[in-house]
C-alpha cells in the first residue's frame, strides 16, 4: 500500500477524526507514562521515549472481569468487552509484543476475552529515531522501525508524519482521514529509511541469543542463577512491566451479595505464584524464580511458539530497583554454554 503524509499542523484534526473509537495515548508524568483514554479534544504529546507501563493492557487488562454473579444464585453474566480502541503512538517493540502473546492466547484453545479485545484494537505506531539507553530490539529479531503488530507506522519527518499503511485496519484509518493526507513521495520514503538506519546505529546494547534457547536447560544447576538473583527483591516489576509477560491469577471478589470472578496480572517472581496449599513450593527461592523467568522467555517460549518472548524494550532493566540487567544475565548464560 502506498505511504501517506500528514502535515503536523493537521495532527489535532487527524486525532479528532479517530475519536469515534476510544483513543489510548501516552499520558502521565515523566517516568510514569502509560496508555490511557485520551480526553476529548486533546492531541497526545508524541515526544515521549516510551511509556513506563507497556500497552499490553489494551488487550489484556491489568484486572478484568470474567463474569458477574450474585452469591447464592447460579446465573453467570459473562463479561463481553466490545469497545473498539486505537493505540496511538505505540512503539514498535510494544506492538510486536502483541504478536508474541497472540500465540499464547490463541494456542490450542482461544482465550475469548483477549481475542475479542485484540480484534477490536487498531495499532498506530511511532517509529523510534532516538532509541533509549537500554533498548535492544534490534538484537531480538526486531528494530526501531519494525512494523510487526502495527496497522500503521508513523515516522516523524520534522514538519510531517509519514504514514506506512501495513494492514487493512490501517487502510480504514486512511479512508477515515483521507482529506487530511497527502501522497508520500520517494524522497519521503528515502528519508524514512535513512532515519531507520541511523536509529539502528544508535542502539548501544545487544543480546547474542544464538544457542541460548537450546542451551539454557543444560545450565539448570549452574551457579549463575544464584549470582544473578542475589540482589532480587522479588518485587515483580520486571514482569508486570514486560510487554510479553502474560501470566495471570484468577480471583473471586464479593461486595455484599454482588460478586465477580476476575483475572489480574500475576508474576512468576512472587513466591505465591507456584505455592502449593500444602506449603510445598516447587520454586522456593528467587534463584528458581529468576531461572524460570529467563528460561520461559528465552527457551520454553521458543520451543512452543518459535519466538523469543522478549522484544528488547529494556523496561525490566530501566525499572528494576536493584539494577538486575537481563542483558548481563544473557551474556553470562552465553559464556556458560
Amino acid at each position, binding site marked *: 500500500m502506498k505511504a501517506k503524509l500528514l502535515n503536523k499542523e493537521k495532527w489535532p484534526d487527524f486525532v479528532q477524526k479517530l475519536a469515534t473509537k476510544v483513543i489510548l495515548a501516552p499520558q502521565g508524568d515523566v517516568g510514569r507514562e502509560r496508555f490511557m483514554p485520551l480526553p476529548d479534544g486533546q492531541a497526545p504529546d508524541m515526544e515521549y521515549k516510551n511509556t513506563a507501563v507497556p500497552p499490553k493492557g489494551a488487550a489484556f487488562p491489568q484486572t478484568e472481569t*470474567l*463474569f458477574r*454473579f450474585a452469591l447464592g444464585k447460579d446465573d453467570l453474566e459473562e463479561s463481553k468487552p466490545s469497545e473498539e480502541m486505537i493505540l496511538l503512538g505505540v512503539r514498535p517493540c510494544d506492538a510486536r509484543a502483541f504478536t508474541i502473546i497472540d500465540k499464547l492466547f490463541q494456542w490450542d484453545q482461544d*482465550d475469548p476475552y483477549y481475542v475479542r479485545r485484540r480484534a477490536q484494537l487498531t495499532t498506530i505506531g511511532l517509529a523510534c529515531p532516538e532509541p533509549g539507553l537500554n533498548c535492544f530490539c534490534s538484537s531480538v529479531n526486531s528494530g526501531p522501525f519494525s512494523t510487526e503488530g502495527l496497522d500503521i507506522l508513523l515516522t516523524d519527518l520534522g514538519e510531517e508524519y509519514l504514514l506506512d499503511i501495513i494492514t487493512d485496519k490501517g487502510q480504514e484509518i486512511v479512508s477515515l482521514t483521507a482529506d487530511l493526507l497527502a501522497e508520500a513521495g520517494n524522497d519521503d520514503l528515502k528519508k524514512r529509511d535513512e532515519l531507520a538506519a541511523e536509529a539502528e546505529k544508535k542502539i548501544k546494547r545487544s543480546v547474542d541469543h544464538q544457542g541460548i534457547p537450546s542451551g539454557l536447560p543444560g545450565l539448570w544447576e549452574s551457579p549463575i542463577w544464584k549470582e544473578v538473583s542475589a540482589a532480587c527483591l522479588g518485587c515483580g516489576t520486571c514482569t508486570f512491566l514486560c510487554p510479553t509477560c502474560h*501470566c495471570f491469577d484468577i480471583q473471586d471478589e464479593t461486595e455484599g451479595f454482588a460478586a465477580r470472578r476476575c483475572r489480574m496480572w500475576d508474576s512468576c517472581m512472587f513466591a505465591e505464584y507456584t505455592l502449593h496449599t500444602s506449603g510445598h513450593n516447587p520454586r522456593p527461592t528467587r534463584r528458581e524464580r529468576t531461572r524460570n523467568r529467563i528460561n520461559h522467555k528465552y527457551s*520454553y517460549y521458543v520451543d512452543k511458539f518459535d519466538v523469543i518472548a522478549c522484544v528488547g524494550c529494556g523496561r525490566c532493566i530501566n525499572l528494576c530497583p536493584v539494577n538486575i540487567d537481563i542483558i548481563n544475565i544473557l551474556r553470562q548464560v552465553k559464556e556458560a554454554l
Partner: protein
Amino acid sequence: MGDNPYIPYTTTVQETWYETGGDRCIKTFKVTLDDQKARESWSHRPGQCAMIGVLGTGESMISISSSPTEGDFLRFSVMKMGKVTQALHQLEPGEKMTVRGPYGNHFPLDQWEGKHILTIGGGIGQAPMRPIVEYVKANRNKYAGLTMIYGARTAGDLCFKEEFAEMSKNEELSCNLTIDVEEEGWEHNVGFVPSMLMDLNPSPDNTIAITCGPPIMIRFVLENLKKLKFADDQIYTTLENRMKCGIGKCGRCNAGELYVCKDGPVFSYARLKSVPEAFA
C-alpha cells in the same frame, strides 16, 4: 461452558461422604451436571482433572476420581487444605458446585491393553488412580491383570477402603494395602509403599507401573522400579502444580517446558526424566 472456557458448568452435589478424618480430612463428592446437554456431551478419560469450585470463593484443580465406565456422574475426593477446599467441604447433597473441564491428557489405557497394570499410590495420590482401577475392572478381559499397592500414614488415612475390601474378595485383582506404623486391628502390611513394592517384587514383563503420591514416595518408588528392571517407558506418574486457568494460558503450572495442565498431568518417566523441574 460453551465457547468460553472460563465459564463453569453448574453441578448438583448428589452424595458426599468422608474418606478420612482429622484436620485434613478427605471428603468425596458425587456430582451431576445440571444442564442436560452438557451432561450428554461431557466425556473424560481416566487421569483427567477438572477445575471445581464454589462461586464467590474460587476454584481448584482436582483429579476426577471416577471412571466414565461408572455412569454419568463425576466423583472428586478433596482434602481440606485451603480456602477453596474448605468451602467445598461445606457442600452437602442438593447444593451447587461449579465444574470446568475435563482438562489435561489421560492415562493411555488403550495402549496398555493386554498388559498387567500395577498401580502404586500413597495417601490422596490414590485419587487419580482410582479411575484406572475402575476402568480396568470394567474392561477386565482387555488387561492381563491388575495389582494395586496403596499406603497411607495410618489406617484412618486410607481412602476408598470399602471399595478395596470388596476388590480383595475378587481374586483377579490383587489389592495390597500398607500403613506406616503398626496399629491395633490392622490385618495388612506395615511399612512404607516403596518397601512394599520391593517385597512384592513384581515382574516388569508386559507390565505398566503407575505411581502417584507424595513427592518423597514417588522418588523412592521410581528408584525401586528401576531396581526391579522396569524400563522408563513402562513407568507413568502424574504431576500436580498450582493452576488457575487449566488451559495453558495463566503460566504457573509449568515444569520446565511442559504445562502440567495441557501436556500432563500424566507423563511417562521416559518423558519426565529429562525435565529438570519435574520433581521439584
